[in-house]
Each structure stands twice: as structure tokens, then as C-alpha cells.
């Protein structure tokens, strides 16, 4: 008899028409540690948000301990004994550990007074009961990431939760902290708690879980006993069969090196592992270098660094053989470096400004006369671009009213409008419909023919395998593999590099 039974859960996000969960059946036994795995966007987080009352399913039912339940809010989830540790912590930095833990269910004195000693004692009791060692009087803002996570777990245990959901709990932790977390989870399971752990690190699945559910594209594709499945098979289940995109990449000679990263390191305070660790990477003219990796392995950091938005801690970046490591983004633009960011809504565009304004923002000086923008010329320029990129809608409306595909086209049009020899794409088709994606692919191949150097960061393996001339796989902030994409590459192989099952022989 399953402890938790979710049946036929279906959830459509109407904003971008994504079917995040498609008739998902999910079961967890009492007392087990159950891993929920899948690529980014597979629907794991949506399913757990539904279980925790943060999202309502369009269809489907939930049974907990044999009883049908409706979970409309996290508070109700708490009452039912469900607790969740979010990937990004929800803590009050100015408060002590004890205050954070009791917040919302504080011990009181005479009805209104906060019983600080009582809170400390209660939290100390929980800490002792589960065998942790941390001082509940410490201020949360001064803790390490691993300790903050422990505070989140304490919050759940203080509320007497029976079912703990952990959303990618290890992504921010160091090796040692992961060991400690796993010991904790095993101890909790031993005393009768049930744990669901979301992850895409297969080694961790093998290590910690008894059973594993694999999701892909909003569906459950497999449920296995962890002992009976190896990492290669899990990896195959996660990435699925290759989908060939409708793009034709003609063979082409590559030119001079345009952008080079040499031994780039990125250290961040509070992280004892570098987020980028000695990354070497060269993008030649007329070449598409695809960077693949699972989130949390340095893709986002590479985007920040290659776009010049984040200063690196070591190594250097060259453009045309000249050191550009310390240049700011206006300088980089002057040199002809362009950038289409993953976060197209906040980083790529100014949502409340018009399409026209978004188009000219990188080159507005061309339309200035006496410090005033010549509107007619600017609008002419915008209409011309809109026609060339088949962008629907009036260039005078705010860009935020456009569809995701059209917004991305505006950004692309802007970035390619000025003289450019290098362009960085990050997740260029994420969340876009098929037609818009194909349009973007055609443009990318077109500028490759024109001889631009292209760095394509993407978690979509099909995209990278179809487009890239050279494939770089990132794992834990390092380049795990740098492979020419000449036909012999399979999704399985790349997946194994991405998940750390395989490493290129040390350089």
C-alpha cells in the first residue's frame, strides 16, 4: 500500500502553452527514500509543487496514507505532514536559527509574548532528537550553505512532517556537506520518515535512494528499484531517443580564432569549489561551439563570464588575440561582441519599453541629433528589422506584449544589427514553439555561413548535437570533454559526460 499516490496529474502552463505534467502517476512507499530524476523541464519540480500546494493541477488526484486529499496551500501541506526544502532557501537572514525554525508556529507566553527561551529549547530539542550539532542561537545570515539547508530541514522536522521533499538539495553543497546530508536523510528514513529527493545527479540516485522515478517531457517514463538499474540505463531513460531537428549544417572550413577563454576560473565566496575551474575554450570564425551540461555545473556562470557581466577570478579572455578580460560591456559591444541571453525577459529586453526602443538600445547613438532621438529614422529602422525577421506586431507596442518567440527575434535582430564577429547564445529556443525555434536555428546557421564565431550554451542536447561543430561538455565547473561533432557522437555518450559518468583523459 503506497503512502503517497498521485494519479493522472496534469498541469498546463497557459502562459507558454507548456504541458508540464501529462497524466503523471507517482507513488512513494512509506519509509523509503525515493529519487525523482529528469532533465531540466522534465516536470519534476511542477509535480512536487503540486504536492506541496504551490500549484493546482488541472486534473488528477492525490492520496496520502490511503486518504484522498486536496492540497491548496503550503500550510495545508504542512498540516498533512508534508514539508519541502526548496532549491533556493526561504530563510530570514537577520533571524537566528531558532527564530527561523519556529516562525509561523512560535511558542508563546501569555498569548502574545514570544517565548525566546522556549523557542531555543524546542529547537535544541529537535536538533538533539535527530542527532544534529548546530547552535540554534546563531544568526542565519552568517551560516554556510550547508547549514542553511539544515535549518530548512529543521523547519520541517519542527512541524512534525512525515514526508520530506527536497528539491535538488545537493546542487549548492560541497562533497562533505552532501555526505552529511545523505547521512541525515538515511537517519530520517530509519526512524520512519519518507523522503522524496529531486536530482539529476545519477551517482546520488544510486547512493541514496531505494527507488527511482524517471520523468521526461512531462511524463513518467520509468519507475525502478534503484538496485536493479545502472547509471547508464538511467542516463538513457532521462535523455530519451535523439530527436533530429530540421536543420542542415553544411560542412565548412573554420577560420581564425575569435574568442578564447584560457584557464578561466570563477570563485565565489561561500562556495569552496570554483564555479568555473580552469575552463579552456576557443571559438573560431564560422564555427558553432556548443556547450552542454546539466544545470548547476557552470553553464550559467559561463554565460555570465563570456558576456562580460561577471569578472573572472583567474585566467584570461581574448578577442582577436587581444586581452579583453577587464573590459566592460559597452567596450565589448564596440569590439563586435553580441549576446542573446537565456533570460530574455529581464536580461535581454526592457519589457515596458517598445519594440522599437528595444531594437535601437544597442545602437541609439546612430539616431541621435543634438542629443535627441530622431524618431522617424528609428521607427524606419525598427520596421525594417521587424520585416526582415518577420516579427509580428507594431514596433511601437511594449515588447512585453509580444510572444516569447517574437521577443527572441527582436533580441536577435538587435544583436545582429551592428557589426559583429562573435555572438553568444544561451538557451536560445528555451520555451519557444517549433516554428520560432526553427527560425532561430536558420538564423544561427546563416550567420555561421557569414563567418561569425558562435558560442551556443544550451541544456537542450538535440539542439547542440544538430547545430554545433564542436561540442564542449561541462561538469562541475570543468570542461569534461571537448569533442568534434562529426557524426559519431550520440546522445548517450554526451549524456554520460554531462552526468559525470565519463571524463576525458586528463590533459
Amino acid at each position, binding site marked *: 500500500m503506497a503512502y503517497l499516490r498521485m494519479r493522472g496529474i496534469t498541469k498546463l502552463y497557459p502562459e507558454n502553452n507548456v504541458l508540464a505534467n501529462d497524466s503523471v502517476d507517482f507513488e512513494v512507499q512509506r519509509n523509503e527514500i525515493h529519487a525523482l530524476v529528469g532533465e531540466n523541464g522534465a516536470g519534476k519540480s511542477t509535480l512536487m509543487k503540486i504536492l506541496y500546494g504551490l500549484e493546482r493541477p488541472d486534473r488528477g488526484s492525490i492520496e496520502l496514507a490511503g486518504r484522498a486529499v486536496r492540497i491548496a496551500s503550503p500550510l495545508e501541506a504542512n498540516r498533512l505532514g508534508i514539508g519541502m526544502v526548496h532549491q533556493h532557501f*526561504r*530563510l*530570514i537572514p537577520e533571524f537566528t536559527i531558532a527564530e527561523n525554525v519556529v516562525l*509561523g508556529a512560535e511558542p508563546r507566553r501569555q498569548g502574545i509574548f*514570544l517565548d525566546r527561551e522556549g523557542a531555543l529549547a524546542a529547537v535544541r530539542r529537535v536538533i538533539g532528537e535527530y542527532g544534529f550539532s548546530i547552535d540554534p542561537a546563531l544568526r542565519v*545570515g552568517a551560516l554556510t550553505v550547508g547549514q542553511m539547508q539544515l535549518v530548512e530541514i529543521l523547519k520541517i522536522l519542527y512541524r512534525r512532517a512525515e514526508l520530506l521533499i527536497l528539491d535538488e538539495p545537493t546542487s549548492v553543497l560541497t562533497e562533505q556537506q552532501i555526505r552529511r546530508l545523505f547521512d541525515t536523510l538515511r537517519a530520517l528514513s530509519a526512524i520512519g520518515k519518507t523522503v522524496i529527493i529531486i536530482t539529476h545527479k545519477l551517482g546520488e540516485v544510486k547512493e541514496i535512494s531505494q527507488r527511482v522515478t524517471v520523468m521526461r517531457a512531462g511524463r513518467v517514463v520509468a519507475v525502478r528499484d534503484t538496485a536493479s538499474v545502472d547509471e547508464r540505463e538511467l542516463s538513457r531513460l532521462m535523455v530519451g531517443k535523439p530527436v533530429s531537428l530540421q536543420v542542415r549544417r553544411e560542412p565548412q572550413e573554420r577560420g581564425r580564432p575569435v574568442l578564447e577563454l584560457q584557464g578561466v576560473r570563477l570563485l565565489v565566496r561561500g562556495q569552496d569549489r570554483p564555479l568555473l575551474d580552469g575552463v579552456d575554450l576557443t571559438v573560431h570564425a564560422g564555427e558553432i561551439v556548443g556547450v552542454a551540461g546539466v544545470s548547476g555545473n557552470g553553464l550559467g556562470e559561463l554565460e555570465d563570464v563570456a558576456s562580460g557581466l561577471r569578472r573572472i577570478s583567474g585566467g584570461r579572455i581574448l578577442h582577436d588575440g587581444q586581452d579583453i578580460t577587464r573590459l566592460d560591456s559597452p567596450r565589448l559591444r564596440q569590439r563586435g561582441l553580441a549576446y542573446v541571453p537565456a533570460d530574455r525577459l529581464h536580461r535581454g529586453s526592457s519589457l515596458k519599453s517598445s519594440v522599437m526602443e528595444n531594437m535601437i538600445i544597442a545602437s541609439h547613438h546612430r539616431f541621435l541629433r543634438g542629443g535627441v532621438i530622431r524618431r522617424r529614422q528609428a521607427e524606419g529602422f525598427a520596421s525594417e528589422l521587424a520585416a526582415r525577421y518577420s516579427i509580428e506586431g507594431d514596433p511601437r507596442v511594449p515588447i512585453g506584449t509580444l510572444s516569447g518567440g517574437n521577443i527572441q527575434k527582436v533580441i536577435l535582430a538587435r544583436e545582429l544589427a551592428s557589426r559583429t564577429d562573435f555572438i553568444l547564445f544561451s538557451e536560445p529556443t528555451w520555451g519557444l514553439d517549433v516554428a520560432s525555434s526553427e527560425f532561430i536555428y536558420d538564423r544561427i546557421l546563416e550567420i555561421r555561413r557569414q563567418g561569425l564565431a558562435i558560442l551556443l550554451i544550451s541544456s537542450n542536447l538535440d539542439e547542440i548535437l544538430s547545430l554545433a561543430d564542436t561540442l564542449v561538455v561541462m561538469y562541475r565547473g570543468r570542461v569534461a570533454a571537448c569533442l568534434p561533432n562529426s557524426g559519431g557522437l550520440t546522445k548517450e555518450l554526451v549524456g554520460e559526460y554531462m552526468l559525470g559518468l565519463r571524463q576525458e583523459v586528463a590533459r
Partner: protein
Amino acid sequence: MKNTTLQRILGVRDFGVLVAAVAVGAFFSIATPVFLTSYNIFNLLRQTAELGIVAMAMTVLIVSGEFDLSVGAIYAVTGVVSGVLASKLGWNIWISALAGVVGALFLGFLNGLLIATTRINSFIATLSTMMVFRGIAMVLSQGQPISFKLEFFMDLFGRAELGGVVPVPVLWMLGWGLVMYFVMHRTTFGIKVFATGDNREAADLAGIKTMRIKQAGFLITSLAAGVSAVISLSFLKTVTPTQGTGLELEAIAASVIGGTAMSGGVGSILGTFIGTFIMAEVRTGLVLLGTDAYVQDAFVGLVIALAVIINVRLSTKKK
């Protein structure tokens, strides 16, 4: 870091403010001999009682992540309502004053309601209610000052001096401060105020009704405005519809000097109390030095800027 006992009692942030208060006091004590006399200190505290009461309440609201620019106007409405009832309609002064304070609470309730229902930024929402409330005070008083004949009531709230030394407004301020201190630093309501201002999402997830907390904050500031208006009318024996102009900004300034973060989540009642005291020190000190009255505001402005700069430095160094 070396922690003295005093520092531990006051907390690191409040300690910095206290040092500033002592430094400012020392400067004026050396510059003018009359500064450091019990008469002057109590006089200084008396003059600052209304501001102190409002500023300590404002701290609660700012910590929760909101502002109330209408407190000065609410202060005027309270005075005018009490004045019209007592002097023009001949009501009993106790009932008139009570009606004024209830009126103040009602206006605070309206502020909270406006922000809760429309989700307008409280800065702009209370800027508009400030003008509306000021208008109410103008209409009710017909733009004229109203004077009172008060006896015992006047003594109790404004004129009397305990033991011939401590003016009663100072006692009211200390009493109010004590209540605010317990509310903010000892009750579960207080911890919710801090949580709401520091990380609203986390507070919501913890089951705190954060909008209720903010609405309660508006009630507290309006009550403070009402109480200090009663103290003012008892001392001055007169009310004007323009009284309390700029009170809201001084209250915010005192709160910030005392270490309250404009972004919410950080602040202390004791800090605000000391912040109010610093502002009063500077004002009185400048008068005693014989500074031109026109220059005084400029100096107060400089002190605020300086205090905030130091504050930001201290709080960023900690992280």
C-alpha cells in the same frame, strides 16, 4: 571583535548610534556650557516627545517594509477634531481627545485598507492620503487655529513636571517607547514584523499573513500620531491645521539614523529613540550656539546624511 557588556545589551547596531549621540552631546557640551544641564536635557526631551512617539511607531512600519507619509496630517486631524469638539461644540475634553485619537486610528485603518486592496506602493499611497487628510484638517478648522481652556487634562498630558524636573510628555514618550519595545522585540507580532520586512516570501510560506502585519503597522503609526497630537495640544493649549507638517519625514529620518533599514527587516526601537535624541541634540545645540535659524535645517540635513552613510558602512561591513 571585543564585546563590552554595554555593547551586548544594546546590540552592535544600537551601540554605534549611542556612540554618535554621546559624541554629538560632547561636542555641544564643550561648545556651550548650558548644553549639559538637566534643565536643557529635559527641555530637549520634552520638545522631542511628539517626534519620538511617532518615530518609534514609524520604525515598526518601516521594518515591515512600508512607509506612512500621512502621519503629520493625521496628527493635525486629531488636534483639529479634538479642538472643534471641545472648543466649538463644548464637549468634555476627555471625550473630545478620545474622539480625536479614534479618528486618527480610523485614518490609519484607511491607509492600511488602501494598500491592502490596491497594492499601491505605500510611499505614493500615503503621499496622497497625506494631502487628503491635511485637507480634512483645513476644512474642519476653516484654516484657523483653535485654542483650549484646559486644567487637569492639560497638566496630565502636557504641562506638569514630575518632581518639578521631568516634564510629563517625556514620561509619555518613555512609556510609549517601552510598549513599542515590547511589541517589536518581545512579542510574536514583532518577530512577524521583522520576517515580513526581511523576506516576505519566506514569511508568507511560514504562514504569516504579511498584509495583516502591514495593516497593523499603519494602525500603530496613526495611534502614535493621535497620542502625540493630544500631548501637543495639552502643552500648547492650541491646535492649528498646519501642525505636524514635515513630521513624517523627521520621523523617518530619526528611524533611519537609529539604524532602521529603508528596505525593511532591520531596525530597533531603542535605536530610533536614540536617533530622535540625536536630531533634538543637533537642533537645540545649534540654537544654544546662536546659529542663524535659517541654517539649522541645513545642519540637520547634514547630520542625517552623515548618520545614514555611517549606518550603511556599518551594516555592509558586517556582511
